[in-house]
């Protein structure tokens, strides 16, 4: 492990340093350090732009202009906000559990930053190509739960605690369908390493064969990041601000930044797992292209999530839980079973491509089979849901009629009807 | 592996035989048994049992009724068809007996050897597979009719399916432990089924009685199994009794066996033969030597059984290991097939539904006991040759117990008035026949009688069930249009007073007068008095159980049923004749005759046990014939003694069909089953039925043994004996009960003949129940209360704890005192420590889990230290 940690983050740098007369060990160390710095600093910088984008889009959706004063197109608005947050007074409520209270935002930030270690930006640029990259992603992001709970508990505030409870309910629940959905691409690739997963999609993006799991992953990501319509953790109307109600100053800023970053990160992973990551024309030869491909794809995912956030109303907590346990989890499991079965079928039919097959046509038949399976699943689910809905509506209608009838009879003088 | 190949492999097939019924049990009990609570007075309630009155009973919904019946039937049928297939496969195996159908798989790893569980189809299994599934299927069909009105029909089918499954498991088992499993499951099922109508106090008392009684025996049997496994390392039948024992020098062994058993012959001969000891001894000696030679030369295999025959047993130096094991196993059999003195549970088992009685008495449970003995027979006779008068202790035990049981049960049966009780005691007696036959080495004869008896006894029970059913039918009829045409009813004698219960009260009153005290009378017409409660209590039960005082099982209430129930009459007649051993045409005759022939053969050689068996069994056979005739007469002959009897019939439709069809089928077997065992040199018939040198049945069964048994040859005297006893008994019965049948209210001529006291004693079964209550039940209750609870629990355990506590508190105080007058300035750490330890010891009983865990940890530490020190690796360490 330790020897594999320093794969080519900026492998272009080390040789220069060595040429510049540095000891190779030192060069490796420096380059690694730089790489780590870069990989962890990049999202922090990115956040500022993300927030700007978000505010702009929200504004557009709500028919406003949005930030437009500070800097061109209000680009510097967030810098100003950040400065404001930093210089604001940092209040720690009385009776708060200081240690935890202060540790929470940092851990929250950490849980997102750590994820970036396994993001393959290009064919060659990746923090660590862990053999269990995907699992790493899941497990590290599960630490975020912890941070939020710590925050909610430590700030010694009822609303905060309620928010924390909801976090446990929501995040832990939604991890289940997410993981199950992620198992499908893993099935296709036969590896947990992010780089392998991306390479596996050079021929065919997984969104085609694993459409259902892609959708499930997207939804559960919305819930994982606690954004609308699943932002019950900080439901302003119910819990004032949820777990971070007591936070102020840069600690609050950290939480906020963390939220945006998390949102972006999960979309990034969606792009990596289902949209082929860096893969694209010429990405193999010119690695830097891959970087742009990746972020373009992520953007295409991120913008809709913002629009969603601006448009969709918040669901009730019970609705959310029901949706997860009664719908997402069963569907994801069904989906997994179906894909596993279809894979065996394609193997039997002999149309399954070899692992790591990069040719589009070679991947096509299996992908089509799986897609057909997905479509069938979706249709089936939809019919079931439609019938259920019909039945419930009918029941409602019947109840209403009965109520009316009852009230009607009540009006009839006694003994009239009996 | 390929499932089809597996299914076509005859070695695998036996696995599937028990599967059907067991599956049926699970399906019914888990899925299809649906019922809704309904007041017992509702129309849905068939009125089958008066015991539900005034309470809500769950009534099976019709759908689940039908489904359960279908499931149960299909289970039984599958078992039957499969076993037929297996039988044919087995008979197709050439040199069957040396090679058998068997397959087994690893069951549990006992460390040294992996214990294998499997199935085995050898000749013995084959005959059981011919008999059991057939009888079971018949019983199932019959139950459709008999339980048609029962509110818990589905449950009944579930239980009886489990019963059948267990029996089939026991039959196809290839090792003693699996057999024991089936055995125990059957025990549970009999408990559940005997107590099937648990609203009746007597019923569940009977159930508990049956369960406990058999349990006593089973525990001892388990001892035997354990000892067997301990001494052989295997429980597989073939490995113990057929295959040569691993690592034995055959020739030397034969030698050694020879003179050894010769010596035993001398001893035994001296002991057994009455006259001229020395001569007898020599005779035995020479004979045995010869016999030994022949056996040795015939089969050059020394099986585990034979080996055990010579190794002395642990603790009991006197007898061989095989002997000890045999005795243990036989006690199990005594319990299971209700031999004296553990027979008490079987008559009470009559509390269960009649199909259950048929199941227990014919197809399954009691046969299982005998079957087990047949299975392990080589172990019993190991080291002895009953045909040469060399008896091992188990054989002696069996001979004595069997003949005593046969005689004693027959005497009781003579005086019973309950139609099912008579059969119950005849069953005990017949089983006594088999056990006795085994005791004198009549392996084939016993097996033969087992099969025939199974057929005609199942038939008899079902027929009696039909009778009872009919009587209840009549009872309802009477209750329905009660006293309206009570008078002008032609059948009803005019003398009957029209009391609350209608006519039937009358004869019972008279009976009561006859016998002075009520409880005896009570015992007479239903089993309540004999549940494991004091007779007085039973009296109350009786009062509360039967709101109306009519007992459809009392033969005194019957009479003349032949008019209304012809089919039942004919079939009952056939079964009865077969039981009585009506010469030449019935199955019972042939099997009994073979047993008696065996006994005769031994007697002529002057062997005591044979003589004993011969005498007892002849008497028993005579009484059998007599009470069969009596039963037939009381039930079917003469005029109806009660109004109910006049209206007794099976009604129409599916019920009657389902109840009569099995009777007809079984009556066929009750006749022809005997012809497979006709001796070859029997005049005329032998030529017809037995072309070969040996009767087909014997030829098949004897292959189950590695040392062949000598074949019987025709001998006129035993045949004459059988003729005399059978015909004599039948004639006497005819004389007493058919020539001038009992009329209503007339008392049983038996009483006048035997005299009141004798009759009452017989009727109360020599007061065995009362004896056992006095000897076992009361003391054990006393023991439980006074010794276990008062003495052990309160006295010892608590006392010990208090003592410990006291001691340590004392030490604590002592040390504190010491410490006080010790130099002051010493910290009070020590006394507090001691005090705390004292508290700690006192608190060993506080329910604080952490303390317990702490103790565990400390114990583990101590053990670890001890281990480390003793193994001395500490020194070995660098």
């Amino acid at each position: 492990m330790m020897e594999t940690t320093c794969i080519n983050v900026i492998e272009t740098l080390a040789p220069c340093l060595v040429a510049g007369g540095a000891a190779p060990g030192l060069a490796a160390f420096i380059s690694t350090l730089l790489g780590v710095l870069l990989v962890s600093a990049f999202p922090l910088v990115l956040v500022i732009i993300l927030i700007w984008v978000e505010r702009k889009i929200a504004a557009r959706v709500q028919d406003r202009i949005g930030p437009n004063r500070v800097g061109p197109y209000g680009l510097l608005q967030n810098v100003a906000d950040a400065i404001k947050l930093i210089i604001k007074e940092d209040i720690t409520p009385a009776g708060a559990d200081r240690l935890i209270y202060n540790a929470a935002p940092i851990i929250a930030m950490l849980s997102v930053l750590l994820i970036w270690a396994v993001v393959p930006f290009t064919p060659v640029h990746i923090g660590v190509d862990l053999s269990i990259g995907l699992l790493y992603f899941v497990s590290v992001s599960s630490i975020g739960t912890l941070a939020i709970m710590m925050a909610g508990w430590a700030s010694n505030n009822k609303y905060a605690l309620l928010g924390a409870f909801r976090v446990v309910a929501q995040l832990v629940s939604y991890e289940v369908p997410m993981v199950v959905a992620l198992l499908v691409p893993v099935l296709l690739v036969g590896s947990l390493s992010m780089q392998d997963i991306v390479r596996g999609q050079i021929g065919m993006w997984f969104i085609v064969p694993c459409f259902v799991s892609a959708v499930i992953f997207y939804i559960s990501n919305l819930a994982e990041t606690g954004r609308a319509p699943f932002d019950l953790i900080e439901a302003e109307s119910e819990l004032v601000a949820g777990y971070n109600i007591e936070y102020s100053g840069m600690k609050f800023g950290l939480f906020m930044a963390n939220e945006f970053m998390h949102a972006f990160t999960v979309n990034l992973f969606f792009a990596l797992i289902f949209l082929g990551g860096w893969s694209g024309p010429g990405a193999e030869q010119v690695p830097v292209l891959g970087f742009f491909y990746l972020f373009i794809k992520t953007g295409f995912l991120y913008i809709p999530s913002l629009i969603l956030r601006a448009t969709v109303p918040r669901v009730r907590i019970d609705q959310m839980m029901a949706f997860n346990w009664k719908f997402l989890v069963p569907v994801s499991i069904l989906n997994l079973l179906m894909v596993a079965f279809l894979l065996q079928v394609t193997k039997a039919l002999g149309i399954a491509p070899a692992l790591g097959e990069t040719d589009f046509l070679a991947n096509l038949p299996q992908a089509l089979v799986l897609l057909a399976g997905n479509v069938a699943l979706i249709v089936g689910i939809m019919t079931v849901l439609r019938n259920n809905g019909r039945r419930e509506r009918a029941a409602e209608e019947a109840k209403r009629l009965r109520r009316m009838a009852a009230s009607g009879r009540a009006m009839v003088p006694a003994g009239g009807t009996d | 592996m390929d499932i089809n190949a597996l299914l076509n492999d005859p070695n695998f097939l036996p696995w599937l035989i028990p599967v059907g019924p067991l599956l049926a049990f699970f399906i019914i009990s888990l899925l299809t048994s649906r019922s809704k609570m309904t007041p017992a007075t509702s129309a849905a309630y068939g009125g089958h049992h008066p015991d539900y009155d005034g309470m809500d009973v769950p009534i099976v919904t019709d759908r689940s009724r039908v489904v359960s019946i279908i499931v149960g039937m299909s289970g039984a049928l599958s078992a039957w068809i499969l076993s037929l297939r297996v039988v044919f496969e087995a008979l197709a195996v050439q040199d069957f007996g040396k090679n058998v159908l068997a397959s087994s798989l690893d069951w549990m790893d006992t460390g040294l050897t992996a214990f294998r569980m499997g199935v085995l189809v050898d000749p013995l299994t084959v005959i059981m597979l011919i008999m059991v599934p057939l009888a079971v299927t018949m019983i199932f069909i019959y139950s459709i009719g008999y339980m048609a009105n029962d509110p818990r029909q589905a449950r009944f089918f579930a239980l009886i399916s489990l019963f059948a499954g267990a029996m089939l498991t026991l039959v196809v088992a290839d090792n003693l432990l699996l057999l024991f499993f089936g055995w125990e499951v059957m025990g549970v099922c009999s408990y559940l089924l005997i107590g099937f109508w648990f609203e009746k106090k007597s019923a569940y008392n009977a159930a508990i009685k049956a369960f406990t009684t058999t349990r006593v025996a089973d525990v001892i049997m388990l001892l035997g199994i354990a000892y067997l496994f301990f001494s052989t390392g295997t429980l597989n039948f073939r490995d113990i009794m057929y295959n040569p024992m691993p690592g034995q020098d055959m020739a030397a062994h034969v030698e050694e066996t020879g003179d050894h058993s010769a010596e035993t012959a001398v001893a035994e001969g001296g002991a057994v033969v009455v006259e001229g000891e020395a001569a007898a001894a020599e005779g035995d000696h020479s004979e045995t030597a010869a016999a030994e030679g022949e056996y040795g030369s015939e089969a050059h295999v020394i099986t585990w059984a034979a080996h055990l025959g010579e190794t002395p047993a642990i603790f009991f130096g006197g007898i061989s290991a095989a002997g000890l094991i045999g005795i243990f196993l036989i006690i199990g059999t005594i319990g299971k097939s209700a031999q004296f003195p553990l027979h008490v549970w079987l008559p009470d088992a009559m509390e269960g539904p009649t199909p259950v009685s048929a199941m227990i008495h014919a197809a399954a449970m009691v046969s299982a006991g005998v079957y087990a003995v047949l299975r392990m027979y080589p172990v019993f006779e190991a080291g002895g040759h009953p045909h040469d008068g060399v008896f091992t202790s188990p054989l002696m035990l069996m001979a004595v117990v069997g003949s005593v049981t046969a005689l004693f049960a027959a005497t009781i049966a003579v005086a019973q008035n309950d139609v099912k009780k008579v059969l119950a005691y005849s069953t005990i007696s017949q089983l006594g026949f088999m056990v006795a036959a085994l005791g004198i080495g009549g392996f084939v004869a016993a097996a033969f009688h087992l099969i025939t008896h199974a057929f005609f006894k199942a038939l008899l029970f079902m027929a009696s069930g039909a009778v009872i059913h009919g009587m209840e039918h009549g009872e309802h009829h009477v209750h329905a249009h009660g006293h309206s045409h009570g008078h002008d009813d032609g059948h009803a004698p005019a003398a009957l007073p029209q009391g609350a219960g209608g006519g039937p009260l009358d004869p019972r009153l008279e009976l009561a007068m006859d016998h002075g005290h009520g409880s005896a009378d009570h015992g007479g017409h239903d089993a309540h008095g004999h549940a494991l409660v004091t007779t007085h209590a039973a009296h109350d039960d009786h009062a509360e159980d039967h709101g109306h005082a009519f007992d459809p099982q009392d033969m005194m209430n019957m009479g003349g049923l032949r008019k209304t129930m012809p089919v039942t009459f004919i079939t009952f007649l056939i079964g009865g004749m077969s039981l009585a051993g009506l010469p030449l045409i019935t199955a019972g005759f042939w099997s009994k005759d073979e047993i008696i022939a065996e006994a005769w053969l031994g007697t002529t050689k002057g062997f005591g046990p044979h003589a004993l068996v011969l005498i007892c069994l002849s008497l028993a056979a005579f009484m059998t014939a007599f009470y069969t005739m009596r039963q037939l007469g009381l039930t079917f002959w003469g005029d109806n003694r009660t109004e109910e009897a006049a209206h007794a019939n099976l009604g129409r439709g599916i019920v009657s069909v389902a109840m009569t069809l099995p009777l007809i089928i079984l009556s066929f077997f009750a006749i022809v089953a005997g012809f497979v065992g006709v001796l070859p040199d029997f005049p005329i018939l032998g030529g017809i039925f037995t072309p070969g040198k040996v009767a087909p049945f014997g030829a098949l069964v004897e292959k189950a043994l590695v040392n062949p048994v000598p074949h019987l040859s025709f001998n006129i005297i035993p045949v004459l004996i059988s003729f005399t006893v059978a015909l004599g008994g039948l004639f006497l019965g005819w004389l007493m009960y058919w020539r001038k049948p009992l009329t209503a209210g007339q008392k049983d001529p038996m009483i006048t003949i035997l005299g009141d006291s004798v009759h009452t004693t017989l009727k109360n079964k020599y007061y065995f129940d009362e004896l056992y209550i006095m000897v076992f039940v009361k003391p054990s209750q006393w023991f439980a209360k006074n010794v276990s609870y008062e003495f052990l629990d309160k006295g010892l355990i608590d006392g010990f704890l208090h003592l410990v506590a006291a001691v340590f508190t004392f030490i604590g105080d002592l040390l504190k005192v010491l410490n006080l007058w010790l130099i002051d300035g010493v910290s009070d750490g020590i006394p507090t420590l001691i005090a705390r330890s004292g508290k700690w010891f006192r608190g060993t009983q506080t329910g604080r889990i952490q303390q317990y865990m702490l103790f565990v940890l400390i114990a583990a530490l101590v053990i670890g230290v001890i281990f480390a020190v003793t193994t001395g690796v500490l020194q070995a360490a660098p």
Partner: protein
Amino acid sequence: MLELNAATIAFFIFSIFLVGGALGVVTSSNLIHGALYLIISLFGGAGFFVLLSAPFMAAVQVLVYIGAIAVLIIFAVMLTRSMTRMTEVYNRQWWLSALAGALLLLMLVVGVILPVWGNGGARPNMPISDIVATTEALGVAFVSGDQYVLPFEVASLLLTGVMIGAIVLARDTES
């Protein structure tokens, strides 16, 4: 005896995590702190797994222990809020427990250092080979019929049963 390289340093850091966290768990009177200490300790364990080149186990440790179990514990602590800060942390037998624990430790250490239990041959200073089975091998081991598929199924059954049992136990009866 052992050269000072990254792995060694990491080992010591993780050991400090483990032991310190464990001590924190048993000593801290505030249960939330205790839970966090537990998490620290578990992180140390995950680090050990990484050092032992079992990355999958490390990830699972983080996912299951920290992501699920620890969260669950914190959740329980929050639910039993009146109990989180107890003045009396230990029961009356704490000293004896400490003694027993120390003895056990002594025994184990002796057992590890000296070949008291079993031979010393099984205590290599270096892995006998650097060929390390991959996560894929682990997966195969779980599902291949001739290895651990049966325990695997049993484990899944156990989890199902536990899920149901937990729901039944913790459900509010009156609601």
